[in-house]
């Protein structure tokens, strides 16, 4: 599986993502600077975590207007897999690639801890190697992860099975509506999630739960 990671000023989880992708796919991802105009021909484009533009205006708002986003939208339209993690999720919602918005955590604090995730839809390219209902561990580190969508949008994404991951067993760290931790677009090729699966991919991290997501993608791309 060929991959690329977009890097913005203020991205800081890009190296974690490079490492995880290289470890799991066996190939070094291509790094794409935000001012470039075209993405390479790959199976998966990742928008990594961090604090692009210092979270100025709204988290992800400025990055979502970067030159490279035009081609990201085109690639997403053509069916290429796109994964946004943390700030990447915020950027994808700001760019209109995913519905809803990420707001300040309900408890107002930055949360950096481990949560439990439930895979509620495993019939997707991002989650096919999970069991349906599987509860797994995943780290979170964010200030604006409180997912919000209006009632109509929420009903739509719930009815369409676009909610892939929910925080499980009362571990919702940010007050997100319906405990939503990760959602995909209606076409099923763009996923945004607040937790960091790239940080739980080898035994040094203390667990391998995050691997399952990347292994699902590898299997789909094979």
């Amino acid at each position: 599986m060929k991959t690329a990671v977009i890097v913005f000023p203020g991205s800081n989880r890009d190296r974690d993502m490079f490492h995880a992708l290289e470890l799991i796919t066996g190939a070094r991802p291509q790094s794409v600077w935000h001012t470039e105009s075209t993405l390479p021909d790959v199976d998966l484009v990742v928008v990594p975590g961090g604090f692009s533009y210092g979270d100025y205006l709204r988290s992800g708002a400025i990055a979502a207007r970067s030159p490279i986003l035009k081609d990201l939208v085109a690639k997403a339209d053509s069916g290429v897999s796109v994964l946004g993690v943390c700030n990447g999720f915020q950027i994808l919602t700001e760019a209109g690639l995913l519905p809803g918005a990420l707001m300040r955590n309900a408890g107002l604090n930055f949360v950096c801890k481990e949560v439990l995730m439930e895979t509620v839809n495993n019939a997707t390219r991002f989650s096919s190697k999970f069991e349906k209902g599987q509860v797994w561990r995943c780290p979170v580190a964010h200030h604006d992860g409180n997912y919000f969508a209006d009632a109509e949008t929420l009903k739509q994404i719930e009815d369409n099975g676009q909610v892939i991951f929910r925080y499980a067993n009362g571990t919702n760290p940010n007050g997100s509506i319906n405990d939503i931790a990760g959602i995909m677009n209606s076409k099923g090729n763009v996923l945004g999630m607040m937790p960091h699966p790239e940080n739980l991919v080898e035994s040094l991290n203390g667990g391998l739960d995050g691997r399952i997501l990347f292994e699902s993608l590898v299997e789909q791309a094979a």
Partner: protein
Amino acid sequence: MKARVIVTLKNGVLDPQGKAIEGALGGLGFNDIDSVRQGKVFDVEVAGTDKDAAKAELEQMCEKLLANTVIENYAIEIA
């Protein structure tokens, strides 16, 4: 021309920062508060003198960047 853009959260959107400010004001003894909502103000200096054109352009700025219309409303004032 001086313009002011005011961005506020839509009704029904939870505002934890507004709630925290509300609580802090209560703690300072300001007890006659029903609620506080936090918003943003942008002061924009616009070139030219055509108010209608400026307003149209500012609306585009709000739609494209200054506001996230999923959760926010905006109002434009031109002096």
